[in-house]
């Protein structure tokens, strides 16, 4: 696989105020690809879901660290990994089913559905007691290729 033309990593504690920060950080880094309004909105929403899950579920009764690792490829492929070292998911397939939630009244169980429909690829790997990695890929249409620094 080709090397990314650019990448960034950001780590922050699982405080809910950082949900907005995570969206803003990803959007700021993506801006070098000159994404369309919808592409940007899709990624912001998907990232918000994954980060919120770390805050609400992975670190339910504690504050832990969340890492976002984002890579940009020359063909417009964007890969975002969101990692926590929280409680882990016991049955990933079940957790990813629409409407499945362990979150009670305020949660709709649609976070993974949102990530799935707003990105081109979603993978989840999780180990109980060790944490979860959510990997999302999205192609950002190359509209100004000559403007790209490779």
């Amino acid at each position: 696989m080709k090397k990314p033309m650019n990448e960034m990593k950001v780590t922050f504690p699982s405080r809910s105020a950082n949900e907005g920060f995570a969206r803003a950080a990803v959007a700021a880094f993506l801006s070098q690809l000159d994404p369309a309004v919808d592409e940007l909105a899709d990624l912001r929403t998907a990232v918000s879901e994954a980060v919120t899950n770390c805050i609400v579920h992975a670190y339910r009764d504690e504050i832990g660290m969340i890492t976002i690792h984002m890579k940009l490829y020359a063909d417009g492929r964007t890969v975002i990994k969101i990692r926590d070292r929280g409680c882990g998911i016991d049955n990933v397939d079940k957790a990813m089913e629409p409407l499945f939630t362990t979150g009670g009244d305020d949660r709709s169980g649609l976070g993974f559905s949102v990530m799935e429909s707003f990105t081109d690829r979603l993978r989840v790997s999780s180990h109980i007691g060790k944490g979860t990695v959510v990997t999302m890929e999205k192609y950002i249409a190359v509209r100004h290729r000559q403007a790209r620094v490779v």
Partner: protein
Amino acid sequence: MVIRMDATPSGLTVWLSGELDHHSARSLREQVDAAVVRSSATVLRLDFSGVTFMDSSGIGLIMGRYRLLQSRGGKLLVVGVSDRLLRVMKLAGLERLPVWETAPVDTKKKQGVTRK
């Protein structure tokens, strides 16, 4: 997220503006629920025309307020939803919920506060 509320005999209207996520939904929910109980309103209008971002936390907020109003024999109305927000709401099938004053069609208008 900034909210503005207006209680009249015909119901309680809440205008939301800013980003609606898990972080902002928490205090929003508390304020709205307290106002519903205080005003004993039977109609709650949630106006989304100022909302610039919403994820599934917004779905939870709407569903929760829908159930709250139903349990009080009242009604929730959702207005001012942009195309972008509608896309998220449709994942939850919210377009089939009886909360729309007018059918949620994709319109191109995004800004402008809808007032009675």
